[in-house]
C-alpha cells in the first residue's frame, strides 16, 4: 500500500471508532472541561499528514491555523473518503467529528446529511472566535464541494 492509501485506511478506521465511542460521549458531556479534553485528544488517534502531504493544494484557505483536507472518491464502491490534518487541536477535533459522520458514504447517503449541523456540538461552536468560525465554514464549503453537493 502507498503512504496515501495507508493514511486513508487508518483515518477511516479511527473515524469509525470516533463515531461509535467519542461522539456519543461528547454529545452527552455537559461540563466544558471534559468536552474540550475529549475534543483535543481526538486528533491524536488519526495519523498526521507527512510534510509531502501538507501541500498547498490541500490547504484550506481562511483558517487561523493551517489545515489540510484530502478527499478520495472510490469509483468502484461509489464511496467518499477523507483525511484531515491541522496545526490546531480544536479544529482537528471538530473536523474529525464532522468527517466521522461522512466518511465512506455514497452520493445518495451524503444528500441526506444536514451539512450545516455537522459542527453543531453544543457548547463549543458558539464559543469559537470569528476567525475559527470562518475556518470551519471554509472546511464545510470544501467538504460539500468534494461531496458534489451544491453550496
Amino acid at each position: 500500500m502507498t503512504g496515501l492509501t495507508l493514511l486513508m485506511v487508518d483515518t477511516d478506521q479511527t473515524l469509525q471508532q470516533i463515531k461509535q465511542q467519542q461522539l456519543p460521549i461528547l454529545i452527552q458531556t455537559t461540563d466544558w472541561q471534559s468536552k474540550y479534553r475529549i475534543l483535543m485528544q481526538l486528533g491524536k488517534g488519526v495519523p498526521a499528514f507527512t510534510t509531502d502531504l501538507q501541500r498547498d493544494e490541500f490547504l484550506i484557505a481562511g483558517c487561523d491555523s493551517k489545515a489540510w483536507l484530502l478527499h478520495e472518491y472510490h469509483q468502484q464502491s461509489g464511496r467518499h473518503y477523507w483525511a484531515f490534518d491541522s496545526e490546531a487541536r480544536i479544529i482537528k477535533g471538530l473536523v474529525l467529528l464532522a468527517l466521522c459522520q461522512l466518511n465512506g458514504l455514497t452520493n445518495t447517503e451524503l444528500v441526506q446529511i444536514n451539512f450545516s449541523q455537522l459542527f453543531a456540538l453544543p457548547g463549543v461552536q458558539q464559543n469559537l472566535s470569528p476567525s475559527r468560525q470562518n475556518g470551519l465554514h471554509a472546511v464545510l464549503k470544501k467538504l460539500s464541494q468534494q461531496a458534489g453537493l451544491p453550496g
Partner: protein
Amino acid sequence: MNFDLTAFRAEFAFFNQQPDWVYLDNAATMHKPAAVISAEAEFYQTFNANVHRGAHQLSQQATQKFEQARDTVAEYLNTRAREEIIWCSGATAALNQLAYGLMGTVLHPGDRVLISALEHHANIVPWQFHCEQLGVLLDVIPLDANHQLDVAEYQRLLALKPKVVSIAQVSNVLGHIQPVAVMVQQAKAAGAITIIDGAQGILLQQPDVQQLDCDFYVFSGHKVYGPTGIGVLYGKRPKLELLRPLLYGGEMIQQVSFSGTTLNQLPYRLEAGTPNIAGAIGLAAALRWLQPWDHLAIAQHKQQLLQQLHHGLQQLSGIELISQLQNNAGIIAFNIKGEHHSDVAALLNQQQIAVRAGTHCAMPLFAAIGKSGAVRMSLAAYNTPQDVARTLVAVRQVLEILS
C-alpha cells in the same frame, strides 16, 4: 502619586455590562469611557451637520466643535501649529498616506527607506508596494537575541543614507519599547525624514512631538480610549507640504476646472471627503478625559499588572514567554510548549478571557524570531490585579486540559 483604580474603571460602562469578562485585548482596541460615548452622542443628537461648507448655523457649530477637537489633539501632542494635525481613519491610513505621499516627491529611484523587523504590516506593506513600483530600496533593521532592535545594525543601515526612517514606538506583538527619541536623533543626523508609528506608543506617555523632533507621528483613536475610524497624522508643516495627497475630492480642493485644480491649504489639503466628525470629537473627548489622570501613577499600576502576569506565567511549567518584562509597554506574548496558539486562545475564550492569537499583523517579526504565532495578552489601566489573577487560573486550566 494617586491612582484610584475603582474610580477609573467605573468610567467604562462596558465592565458593568460584561462583568464576567477579563479583557486583555487592549492592543487590538480599547474600551471607551463615558466621556467619549457621550461626546459622540451629543454631536449626533444636538448639532449633527457637515463641517466647513454649510450655509446654516448648525454647520457652523459642528465645524467649531470639529476644529476645537483638532486644537485639543494639537495641544496634547504639543505641536507648533494646529495645521500640523491631519485627521485620518487611523494609523494604517496615516502610514499609507505617508508611503504614497513621499514617493516621487522625496523618494526617487535608487533612494532607500529604513523600517524594522518588528513593524506592524501597516508600516511594512505600503512601503514595500510603493518602493517596488518606483525602484526605491527598502532596508530592515533586524532584531537582536533579546528581540530588541539591533542598534549596531541600525547604525550600519543609517550609513547607507536612507531618505526616510519609519519605526514603531512599541512593538504591537511583544510590547517592547523602542528607543525612538535616540533613533530619531540619529536618523536626523543621517539626513532622513523620520516617522514614528505611535499606534501602541501613544499611551506610553503624553508624546511631545517638538521634543521628540520627529517629522511625522501617527496614531489611532481607538488605542487611546477613543472611537474607531479616527486617527491622526501629525507632521511638521514643511514636511506635510511635501506629501502628495492619497485621496482627492471634497474640502481638500480650492478651485477646480477641467484645465486644472488647485488644492486647499493644510490641514484640509490632506483631508479629502467628509471627515469622521463624530470620531474627531470623540477622540478629543478621550484625550481631554485622560489628561487630568496621574499618568505616572497609571504607568506604575500597569507595570505592577505586567509584573504580576509575567511572574505568574513564568511560574507555570510549559509556558514559553516571548516578551521581556524590561522596557515593556504592557504586552505579554507567549506560547504553551508544543501547542498551537489558537488552541490556547480558544480555551481562554471559553473561560471568558479575551486575548488574541496569531501573528498580530506582524508576520516578518515571527519569521525573525522563528515562531509561527503567539498568544498575546495586552493590559490597560482599567485592568485589575483580580483580572490578572483570574487569567492565571484560566491558563492553569488550559494547561490541564491540554496535558
